[in-house]
């Protein structure tokens, strides 16, 4: 059973557009939702995170929109750059820090 689901395995957008990556989850007990960015040959690295008490978190060009009632969230990458091409993982945490990851979305930015 996939507790955290990412709706697209891959996504391609043009440079300068806003990329939108979607994620949904099953467990109402999840209270912390990080997004990780992974480049080829590297481990995932924390990009931005939100807690369930908030509905929006912004950090530069990256924004998380969170809908607790619908159990979904999305990562918006404004003004996409070729350097943003990577795999993005949505994750959720409960119970002493066990992170549950989604399947990942491979984002490609076309110049």
């Amino acid at each position, binding site marked *: 059973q996939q507790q955290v689901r990412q709706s697209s395995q891959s996504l391609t957008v043009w440079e300068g557009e806003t990329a939108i990556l979607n994620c949904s989850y099953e467990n109402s007990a999840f209270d912390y939702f990080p997004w990780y960015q992974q480049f080829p040959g590297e481990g995932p690295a924390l990009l931005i995170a939100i807690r369930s008490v908030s509905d929006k978190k912004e950090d530069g060009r990256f924004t998380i929109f969170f809908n607790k009632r619908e159990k979904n969230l999305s990562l918006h990458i404004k003004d996409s750059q070729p350097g943003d091409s990577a795999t993005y993982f949505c994750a959720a945490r409960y119970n002493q820090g*066990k992170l549950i990851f989604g*399947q*990942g979305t491979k984002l490609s930015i076309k110049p």
Partner: protein
Amino acid sequence: EAAVTQSPRNKVTVTGGNVTLSCRQTNSHNYMYWYRQDTGHGLRLIHYSYGAGNLQIGDVPDGYKATRTTQEDFFLLLELASPSQTSLYFCASSLGWNTEVFFGKGTRLTVV
């Protein structure tokens, strides 16, 4: 920047073989984790530990053992490797249960 170092970076073994993956963190972190990454599944937690000598079972522990010998070192053991264990393995660490998790660069294991 937190440092998590994995070795080897690549490993090929035969079915039934014995493999040990090593991880060292120099961040004075309490928690260490082993994940496997597979296409279509994301990262799945195998085992984790919150201190030397401690071991907690993750979500996909079957076929794996782990041992935390020191604060810095966490090992993943495959005693009878199977082709289904061909994967990309990541070690990670965090200071506490609710703090940022830092990942190593991964070990690609192939079981033939």
